[in-house]
Each structure stands twice: as structure tokens, then as C-alpha cells.
């Protein structure tokens, strides 16, 4: 068994298990940590797929930055005491699972028809990137995707403004009376 096969069959189940773990854990922090594990596994997959740059970015950006942000917010809000996991919506869970399975089946059918289950990746991927993956990516990025790359800057500005707007205390905090009114409305319904 080739190494990459072994790696795949080791990390794929782990990533699935981690995803399951994320879904079932009572404590949000545990879930977040499982998600980090999952991201790590995916990073390994990137390695298998000859994308070392993305492997690094995945670890740094996702596991390192995004998930830390998540954890930070969880701590900030203090909602880490474990969630109520009872389902109050009729048929929500069974439907979700059935639909997800159906979705998976549909995707599988399409992949089987479009790619084939035994198709292997072609050779010569390294030849495309003589000066290394990062350099090659940069070339594509700044040649073909120069403009989209610029556009991401607007996206990030918007994100920054959004955070500023939402984080500002200028938003009138909810008054006690309003809270009561809201909860009463809830009860009434």
C-alpha cells in the first residue's frame, strides 16, 4: 500500500470522526476543538494533493486564526457551559439526516459519473511548478486572478467596517423592559 493511501485512510476516518465529534459534543469548546482536529486532517489531505502552500495556510489561517477567534468569542460570551441539546422542532433531526444522506447520494452519483471512482490523479503536477508550489500559486494568483485578488481587499474592508459597526456600543443596549417584553411575547406565542 502506497504511503499516500495509508495516510488517506488514516486521516480520512479521523476527520470524519472529528466532524461527528463536533456535532455531538455538549460543550461548545469541545466542539470547536474537534473542528480544529478536522481542519488539521484536511490540511494533511492538502499535502496528499500536492498543495503544501495551502497546507500551511490551512494550519495558520484556519486552525490558527479562525478557530482561535471562535474560541475567543465563546469565552467572551461565556457560553461554554454546555448547550441544551433537546430538539423542539418537529422532525428536524430525522429530516436533516435523511436529507443529508440524500444529498450525499446525489453528490456521489454525480462524482461517479463525472470523475469515476478509480480515476487517479495524472502525473506531472510537479512539472507545473518548477520553482515550488508557493511561487506557482503566486504566479497564477497575480497573473490570472489579479483582479479578484484585489477585490478581496474590498471584502476585507467591508468585514472591518462590519465589525466596527456591530461592535460599537453606540447600538442602544437592550433595556430591561424590552427584554421582559420579548420574553413575554415568547411566552404568549
Amino acid at each position, binding site marked *: 500500500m502506497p504511503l499516500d493511501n495509508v495516510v488517506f485512510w488514516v486521516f480520512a476516518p479521523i476527520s470524519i470522526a472529528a466532524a461527528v465529534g463536533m456535532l455531538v459534543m455538549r460543550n461548545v469548546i469541545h466542539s470547536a476543538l474537534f473542528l480544529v482536529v478536522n481542519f488539521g486532517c484536511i490540511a494533511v489531505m492538502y499535502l496528499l494533493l500536492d498543495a503544501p502552500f495551502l497546507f500551511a495556510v490551512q494550519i495558520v489561517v484556519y486552525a490558527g486564526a479562525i478557530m482561535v477567534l471562535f474560541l475567543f468569542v465563546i469565552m467572551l460570551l461565556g457560553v461554554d457551559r454546555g448547550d441544551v441539546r433537546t430538539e423542539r422542532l418537529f422532525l428536524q433531526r430525522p429530516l436533516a439526516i435523511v436529507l443529508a444522506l440524500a444529498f450525499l447520494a446525489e453528490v456521489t452519483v454525480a462524482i461517479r459519473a463525472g*470523475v469515476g471512482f478509480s480515476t487517479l490523479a495524472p502525473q506531472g503536477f510537479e512539472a507545473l511548478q518548477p520553482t515550488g508550489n508557493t511561487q506557482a500559486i503566486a504566479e497564477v494568483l497575480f497573473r*490570472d486572478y489579479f*483582479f*479578484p485578488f484585489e477585490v478581496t481587499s*474590498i471584502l476585507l*474592508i467591508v468585514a*472591518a467596517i*462590519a465589525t466596527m*459597526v456591530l461592535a460599537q456600543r453606540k447600538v442602544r443596549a437592550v433595556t430591561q423592559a424590552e427584554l421582559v417584553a420579548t420574553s413575554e411575547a415568547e411566552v404568549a406565542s
Partner: protein
Amino acid sequence: MIAMLLHLAQAAPTAPDAPIPTPALVFRPILPELFLCAAGILGMLYEAFAPRSRRSLHLAIALAGLFGAGVAASKLWNWTGAPFVLGDTVAADRFTVVATIVLVIVAAFGCIYAAHEAGRDEATYRGEFYPLILFATAGMTLIVAANDLILVFLALEILSLSLYVLTGMGGRRSSEAAMKYFLLGAFSSAFFLYGVAMAYGATTSTKITAIVAALAGQTGSQSLALLAMGLLAIGFGFKVSAAPFHMWTPDVYQGAPTPVVAFMSAATKVAAFFALMRVFDVALQPLTWDWTPIVYALAVVSVLTGAVLAAAQRDVKRMLAYSAVAHAGFILAGLTSANTTGIRAAMFYLIAYSVMTVGAFGVTMLVAFKTEEPSSYDSYEGLASRSPGLAALLTVFLLSLAGIPPTVGFIAKLTVFGSAIAAGNWPLALICVIASVIAAYAYLRVILRMYFRAPRGAVVDDTSLVPQIAGLVLAVTVFVLGVFPRLLSGIIEQASILRW
């Protein structure tokens, strides 16, 4: 601010000594976006550095940016350069020009409304509002211009993120609206992105022109392309609020600040539909026989859901939200004819719809503004005797939405039904007209409350001049375009040709 400056630095061209060749930088086709972003950034700087920002100046900056963008766009009408620029990621065609101009006009109305509403209650005034509108508009124009699915996705995210925040800028309900919008939006954009991935998987490219070439030349994977088409349809379906991907619409429209709704109901629909047309009528053109049934089905479900549920509402904004669903369905019905007929019909309908919906929400903003539930039907009882002008305006817009001649809504419906029937889908057209009867019932419920009921208590309406004039302009447009549709159809005819 530092983050922002960093981003700016990032956006600068790469260093001259870099070994990577950059594509030819042709800025004119993206000049509208540059104007919009520049004005947005200017507004942000003003908000950040001025001790107390003034509404009027914000509005002026925004309107200047929008005006500039509009002028820049109109200059592109006779663009003779390459049809695709900036590494083939941006299409420079009249299709984009029309969309851009419509979008900036809608945005201008949104800004004017917002400035007016903020003027009523200083506590609700947020200076960031205008830059966000501008960035959202930039995202919208980009999504239309984009010739690359990833750029479509990025633009989609720009406008979505802006709109999430704008939605949350109101009172108590708006944060709920923002949250729902955001969660569902993120969910749906995952599907969209998955679709982009599949399209890439199918054709090795995300460029629209490359995809169509690949699919037409049978070099791509048909089944992956189909999967991509389905997933993209879901993503677009969400944005244009076609049933069953419409569920966010009523809650968001009801909860978001009315100027935002006025802006987004029209602009999002325009942008998303224009992008949808480019993707489906160009990129997926070889798959026409596969996607028209989906569009057909979405149209049926949308018109029926929208019309029927609109009839049960007791809140004007919510009702208009459902009607937005129905109108998405009508436009989809027009798009079942996968050629210029369908594109023209949809373009006309979108512009007509923009006029009507911006007008309708504009009135909504003014009615009973001091009450707890300003948009509830109760607030509209006796509006005609309270504020006859507002009632007349709203009636015009509602009748136009209902498709009663001689309003533009009728001509719009005529064109989409004509398009559907030309494609042989007369059952669809029949369902649509029946749905429009049901929808008419929904609108009449409002009209009858305005005209046939006595006002309840001492309700006060905002009868300021500026928004009423804005409304009047739109109402006149409704009639002018209804009677002289060729003012518009001539332009649309020239803009409806999508090249690849």
C-alpha cells in the same frame, strides 16, 4: 483603521520588479466600482476622523460616488475595447452598463431614504451606513460584470456581508433579521461555492467564457457541470429569493430598516438576476435543456408561494417580501426562454420591479412612523384620508406590482409571460397569471385598508417633501414606462446581447 490601510496597500499593484507578469491593467470598465469604493473609503475616513459626522456630508459623498459611478458606467455604453478585461475576469458590455446604472440609482434612493429616516430620529443615525451601501453597490455591479465564477462569489460575499450589517442597523428586530440573514446566507453561499468548485471540476476553469467553451466543445465533464448548475441555482435562488430558498426574505424585509429593504429588495434582485443570466445563459448555455426545467419548477413554486402567502400577511413589509418571492418567480418564468427574449423580458421586469418596490418601501418608511408597528396593516387603515398623497403613491406602486395597466408592472408581466409562451411554456404562463390574481388580492387588501377604512386613533405620517418627491418621481416613472415602454425596451434590446 490600520487594518484598512493594510488592505489598501495590499490592493496596490505589485512591485515593478516582480517576476510575475500582471495582466494589462484596463481600468475603465471597473471605473464605476472604483468610484464606489473610493467614495466608500472617503466616507469611512470622514466618519473615523470627524468628531461628529454630518448626515448631509455623508449623503453628499455617497451621492457623488454613485453619480460618478453612473457616469462612468454610461461612458462604457460605447466601449470598443476588449470585451473581457483584467485577465478575462471582467466583462465590459452594455449588459453590465444597464445593471450598473440601475443599481446606482437604486442605491441613491436608498441613501436618500436613509438620510431622511436618520433625520427623523438622530439616535438611529449611523455614518457607516453610506459606505456600506456603496460597497454593497460595488459588490453588486461587480457580480454583474464578473466573467469569473470566483469573482462572482467574491462580489456576492461583498454585497452579502454589507447587507448583513446594514440589515442589523435598525432597532430591536433588525438584529434578529441580521442573524437569520447571515446564517442562511452563509449556508447558501457554501452551496454556491460548492457549485463553483464543481464547475471548476467539470471544466478546469471558473471563467464563464471558458466554461461555455468547454461545455460546448464537450471537453468538460457533463455530470459535474450539471451538479455545478444545480448548486449554483441554489445559491442564486437564495439571493433572488426564489422559493423554496426564500425563507429568509419575509423576516429580513420585516426586520431590516426600511431604507435598507428598499435598497436591497431591488438591488439584490437586479444584481443576482443579472449574474444568474450571465451564468446560466452564457456559461451553462450548452446545458439549456437541463436547467430550464429547474427554472420552470422554481418559477412555479415561487409565484404560488409568494402570491398565496402574501395574501395572508398582516404587515406591509412582510407582504411585500412575499410579493418579492412571487416576482422572482415571474422573472424566472421569463427566463425559461433561454435566449435574448428571456433576457430582455427579465431585464425589463427587473427594472420595472426596482421602480415599484423602491417606491413601495419608500412609502412604507413614511407611514405611521411613530407607532410601535409602523408597517402593520392596522397602521394603514384610513391612510387615504390621513395622508392622501402617500396613499395614492402606494396605490400606484401596488397596482403596478399587481400588473394592472397602464403601469409598468403590466408591461413587465406581459414581456415575461410572452417570453415564457414563446418558449412553449404556456402552462407556466397560466399559473403565473393566476398567481398574479392571487397576488392582486394581497395588494388589494392593503389598498382597501387605505381607502375603505377609517383611520384608527391619532396616527401620524411623515409627510416630508423630499421622500414624497422621490416617490412621485418613481410613480411617474411607473406610468411613463407603462405607457411608453419603448423608452426602456430600446435600451434593453441593445444591452441584452451577451457575448462569449
